[in-house]
């Protein structure tokens, strides 16, 4: 019997989880979608190593893991630089060690493995649901000593390709369109929201990105009934601070929602480290829709080169 092909976790990094494109179709039972925060990076990294767009990969955060290859394993990083060149295939031989501990200006990246990470499919997905402790690798973030088996590779890797994603600057602009309750915010609150810079709080996680900045005013939330939440929705808590809901948000929530970040900018947001400032640029939903369709077409045809 040949030893399993895959990656051994030598150092875990801050928050390394197995993610794919998420767990869809269980919203009526309260199951968070989860999945990679940066879908664009997941899809590109998977394409580089010859996988389907939705193969399970590693999402790494602020400080990435140190991994040792068992057997020959092609990997690719997309979304941010954590040491090894992002956007290119890295061909690891048996015993090679690769370290993602040196982040240079990005909060997150995706490390894809040729064949995809072979963890069980739970409710239709291999994503880790941290809050409910299931899916991914034993329902948790990775720990030292975990062995990630790789499934047999599919298509050959794109050895000549290079993928390039926007890196966050010091001041990030996110396009967004009005949310379901924008009209319920008074004019002053709307002016603050669309006209101010907010800082990404270190208290952010895979459920939501907390922003700190000028208050949008106290919000009446006690009597608001819960409603379904979508990715990128900007809800405003009782103290007037916005939270951008991310992949692992609860399925329902009761805070008023002032805006929705355009899906094409959610990858950039996932890459932006805590402490940086963001502002929102108002665009019509029709424009956000057009941008998303165009982005998806670009991703589908990606076979190397700039995207």
């Amino acid at each position, binding site marked *: 019997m040949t030893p399993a092909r895959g990656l051994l976790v030598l150092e875990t990094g801050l928050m390394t989880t197995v993610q794919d494109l998420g767990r869809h179709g269980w*919203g009526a039972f309260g*199951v968070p979608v989860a999945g990679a925060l940066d879908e664009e990076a997941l899809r590109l990294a998977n394409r580089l190593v010859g996988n389907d767009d939705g193969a399970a990969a590693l999402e790494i955060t602020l400080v990435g893991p140190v991994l040792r290859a068992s057997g020959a394993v092609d990997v690719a990083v997309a979304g941010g630089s954590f040491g090894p060149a992002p956007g290119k295939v890295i061909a690891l031989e048996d015993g090679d060690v690769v370290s993602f501990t040196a982040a240079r200006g990005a909060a997150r990246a995706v490390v894809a493995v040729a064949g995809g990470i072979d963890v069980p499919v739970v409710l239709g997905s291999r994503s880790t649901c941290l*809050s409910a402790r299931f899916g991914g690798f034993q329902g948790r973030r990775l720990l030292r000593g975990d062995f990630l088996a790789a499934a047999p590779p599919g298509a050959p890797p794109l050895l000549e390709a290079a993928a390039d994603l926007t890196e966050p600057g010091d001041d990030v602009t996110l396009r967004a*369109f009005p949310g379901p309750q924008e009209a319920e915010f008074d004019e002053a609150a709307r002016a603050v929201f669309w006209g101010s810079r907010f800082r990404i709080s270190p208290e952010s996680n895979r459920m939501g990105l907390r922003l700190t900045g000028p208050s949008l005013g106290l919000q009446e939330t006690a009597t608001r009934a819960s*409603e379904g939440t979508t990715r990128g929705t900007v809800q405003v808590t009782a103290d007037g601070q916005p939270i951008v809901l991310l992949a692992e948000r609860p399925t329902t929530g009761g805070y008023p929602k002032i805006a929705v970040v355009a899906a094409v900018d959610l990858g950039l947001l996932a890459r932006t480290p805590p402490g940086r400032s963001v502002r929102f640029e108002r665009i019509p939903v029709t424009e956000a829709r057009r941008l998303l369709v165009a982005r998806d077409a670009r991703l589908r045809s990606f076979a190397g080169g700039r995207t």
Partner: protein
Amino acid sequence: MKEAGEFAWLLEYAGDEIAANAAVRSALAALQAAKLRGVRDVVPAARTLLVVGTPELDPESLRAFERVFERIRPGGPGPRSRTHEIRMVADGLDLDEIGSRTGLAPAAFLETFSGLTFTVGFLGFSPGFAYLYGLPRAFYLPRRGTPRVAVSAGSVALAGPYVGIYPASTPGGWNLLGTTQRRLFDLRADPPFLFAPGDRVRFRL
């Protein structure tokens, strides 16, 4: 129909919350039966049904669905709704307070409570957490001022118009009435969720 994402819409139903939620549940069943192209997920909640689609979901088809649904608006429990008897031990930390706030001795409160039949309005907050309707108004209690850091799995609790059961240990701000051994979310079970929207629930002491 409100935009909630590039290809996501919130359908909202009018009336008091109980009536609106009944409409949400029948819209959920009708939408699932309609099998519209491009629907990726549906999330029923108190008065809204969130429809999350792919770029293939045409808002016109959703509007047409709404028009037909508003005309026929079927009522009553769905054909597949089930009735659950949940054994509960009345050991909640807030039992005395629930009694005093509703003006009843704990025993009298529990007797009334165990005679009620609840309806699963929707699930949310965490996998398998069900919001049950069916409390009389006198039993509507506000959430606790400060949520507890951890509420143990199986806790039966009250807040506003809802009764809920915590499927897993999570933080929580509801008033704790008792506990049950039943599992609401169990990946080894088929189906993994004990409750579905529209199911009936009774508590037995």
